[in-house]
């Protein structure tokens, strides 16, 4: 009896996952790993911006930041530290990053603004204690920021 073997091997090779990298914007977790592990000083109860400034340097390569050109909205008092609504807006920004001084690590998120993207983002973050939220925007190679102190009554990191 004749046996026909259908060689499906070719098909199996194509089944391996291929992610089209053609139009992937930058994944900052991969390109700037140290920025994500930069710590806030544990003993300063959220009052020191040293960790934030160090994380800014890790992410952007400089800690030279001017105040302005960034609008940051966050509540004065967060009743629930696990869900704090934050909105950041900065016209002409090509990158926007959010930091805070309250949690063990300083960096929260980085937005890479694509060609037709509008640099205005909303998200909900966690803060384990009262601290300062800092939004940094990169515009024409320069860094600008806005800061907002958020008082946290019930800590939001499982505390």
């Amino acid at each position, binding site marked *: 009896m004749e046996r026909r073997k259908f060689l499906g091997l070719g098909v199996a090779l194509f089944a391996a996952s291929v992610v*089209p990298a*053609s*139009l*992937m*914007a*930058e*994944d*900052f*977790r991969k390109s700037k790993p140290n920025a*994500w592990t930069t710590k806030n000083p544990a003993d300063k109860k959220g009052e020191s911006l040293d960790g934030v400034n160090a994380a800014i340097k890790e992410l952007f390569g400089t800690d030279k930041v001017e105040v302005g050109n960034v609008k940051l909205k966050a509540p004065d008092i967060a009743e629930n530290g*696990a*869900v*704090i609504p934050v*909105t950041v807006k900065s016209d002409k920004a090509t990158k926007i990053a959010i930091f*805070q001084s309250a*949690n*063990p*690590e300083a*960096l*929260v*998120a*980085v*937005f*890479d*603004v*694509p*060609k*037709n*993207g*509008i640099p*205005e*983002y*909303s*998200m*909900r*973050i*966690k*803060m*384990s204690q009262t601290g300062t939220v800092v939004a940094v925007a990169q515009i024409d190679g320069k860094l600008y920021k806005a800061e907002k102190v958020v008082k946290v009554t019930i800590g*939001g*990191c*499982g*505390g």
Partner: protein
Amino acid sequence: MRIKAKLKDGVTTAKVMAKHPMMSYDEAKKKKKEANFITHITAKVGDEVVYDASTSQFLSKNPYIKFAFKGENKGKELVITWVDLSGKSKTGKKKIK
């Protein structure tokens, strides 16, 4: 994930709620579980990336995000993809209205 995408005056506003425990390292230690949280979220319309966020353990559980982008995209599909620390990935799609 839940996605809303509305086009008005050439701008699409998208609201996305992803389902994810977003367990931080500290939370994981307390609960004796593995830390796991979304690390990257992208949104595309066709081949075009319209949103790109690298994220941390400090986004709230079941992350909610809102963003907007320009373009005459009525009827096109908005595709949201997230990847988490464990390497798992999830994709959601919604037609822009």
